[in-house]
């Protein structure tokens, strides 16, 4: 029987949640026996090769490209897990939500003490995705099946969740693993 597939992505996150996946350490070698990785930063598969059992989403949505990737994950995955506080609540990037976006851009590209910008330009190339007015948690954009809190959720939290779901067991995390930061 073909192994179930797992896909992962990082949207407006810091990659710390992906590092926490890697923090399962030696168990990675067990994991690649249990599942095949599809689209994910841990391998070189860049577009979905088929239906996935589980999709892990790090980070919220900060630009239009994040939205498209997230919608693509919903389309291809049976179960979507919001991994960490950024996906669940927007996290630190959502601190910009109380401010006009323009102020953030001005601070970075016009006002900083080391800025050299004689033309006073703000990056605006067609190659750059469109920034959203705010940073949105993932459940504001698509339906999410599970939420794992933490910044990042610990490796044990991620490991136990994956093992339970892959074995069709109920997800019953001990109290110590459910932590907010």
């Amino acid at each position: 029987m073909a192994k179930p597939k797992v896909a992962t992505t990082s949207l407006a996150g810091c990659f710390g949640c992906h590092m926490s996946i890697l923090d399962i350490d030696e168990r990675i070698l067990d994991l690649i026996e249990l599942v095949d990785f599809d689209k994910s930063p841990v391998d070189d598969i860049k577009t979905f090769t088929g239906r996935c059992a589980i999709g892990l989403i790090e980070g919220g949505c900060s630009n239009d490209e994040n939205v498209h990737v997230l919608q693509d994950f919903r389309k291809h995955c049976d179960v979507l897990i919001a991994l960490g506080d950024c996906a669940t609540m927007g996290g630190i990037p959502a601190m910009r939500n109380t401010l006009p976006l323009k102020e953030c851009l001005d601070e970075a590209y016009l006002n900083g003490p080391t800025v050299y910008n004689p033309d006073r330009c703000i990056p605006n190339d067609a190659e750059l995705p469109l920034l959203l007015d705010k940073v949105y948690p993932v459940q504001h954009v698509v339906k999410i099946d599970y939420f794992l809190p933490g910044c990042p959720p610990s490796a044990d939290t991620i490991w136990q969740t994956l093992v339970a779901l892959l074995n069709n067991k109920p997800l019953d995390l001990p109290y110590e693993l459910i932590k907010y930061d």
Partner: protein
Amino acid sequence: MSTKQTLKRVVIDPVTRVEGHGKVSLLLDDKNVVRQARMHIVEFRGFERFILGRPYWEVPVTVQRLCGICPVSHHLAAAKAMDLIVGADTLPPTAEKMRRLMHYGQMLQSHALHFFHLVSPDLLFGFDADPAIRNVIGVARKFPDLAVQGVMLRKYGQEIIKATAGKKIHGTGAIPGGINKNLSVAERDAFLKDVDRMMDWSRGALKVAKDYTVEHLETLAPFGSFDSNHLSLIREDGAMDLYHGNLRAINAGGDTIFDQVDYQDYTDYIAEEVRPWSYMKFPFIKSLGPENGWYRVGPLARVNTCDFIDTPEAEAARQEFMALTGNKPNNITMAYHWARMIELLHSMEKIVALLNDPDLQGTDLVAKGDRREEAVGLIEAPRGTLFHHYKVNADDQVVMCNLIVSTTNNNEPMNRAVAGVARDYLSGNEVTEPLLNHIEVAIRAYDPCLSCATHAMGRMPLVVELFGADGALLDRRVKE
């Protein structure tokens, strides 16, 4: 008709197996000669603005959320700035050494992650190998011993971070003026038990990187290479120091541009140019101007700028490395990997020395002095010099924040490497997946952390699209 209209656009989106989300755009003329090559950073966070008004003591914990790969670097750079804000000009030895231990643990885990998990597939299988196996899982299947060593070296570094910072990712150990815990005897003994194995594996990793570079030197030497200036922190006696020092910059031939500059004055020496096509700015040395003042940072720059390394095995490795280029600075892009593994061994040697230092069990953890309003904190992060600069008002609120992250310093060099490889390998050819991977190989040499650079992170498929002058799609390839 302007030339622009006759050019075809090729996009690599995103660059993969790097830490973060960037893309490359190429403009080709009708003979497929590359006319323009750019690496774009496509995410933006706005940290410098939304941190304003927050209490200063919160910053070392919040700012590391820029980057989950090297959170310790941001944690410590911010803490070093906040030390000065609270007037702690000198930290108690226990505090400084705990932070150093945390930092060397961070170097070890980050360099191991980059070398084993991200880059080794290119080196072991070849730049144009089948992408289905050209990944860390392929390495785990074909070279299980090496994969396990990579996983365990990284784990050791992560455990050290946990013991010093409280958590493997986004810890809280460094506080303004010091540290919030020491190292228990039990923690120390658990680490000491494994040091021989870790030293062996670090030597092994260095050997893999060195042998690979030497064996393939003919291909690697010109690969995305160019002369450049180099910048890093340096100890007062000229030794490599990853945690603290003064700024030194040298040119491609090894002549001094400036030396032993107090980094509190960095704004007199460094500026950053804004270009409309990237969220990542382009730093340069002010005295040389934006055209000629750009420089490289990170392992290659550090090995080039230092006079010596103060641990014996890494110093022997450095001498061997420098001999390759006649003791002049090494300007080979692909030599970054070798230099990075010299630092991996150096960090491991430092860890052993620190673990044997009884100061780590000291109980004097925090210093304090007269409050300041402005301070700069610098550190040599795994990817290079990291600048944090803050102003704090009398109500303890941050009123100014400026960050130049390591990867940003390498913005111009990465763009040059992309342009060079595109010109040498793509020009005149049909665009294929293996050729595009060559461009990514050059970018990966810099171990760019685009997460940091966007003050961001995300990965997507590599899609290359060729458009004709009229905007019509000519060819599309998806890297699977």
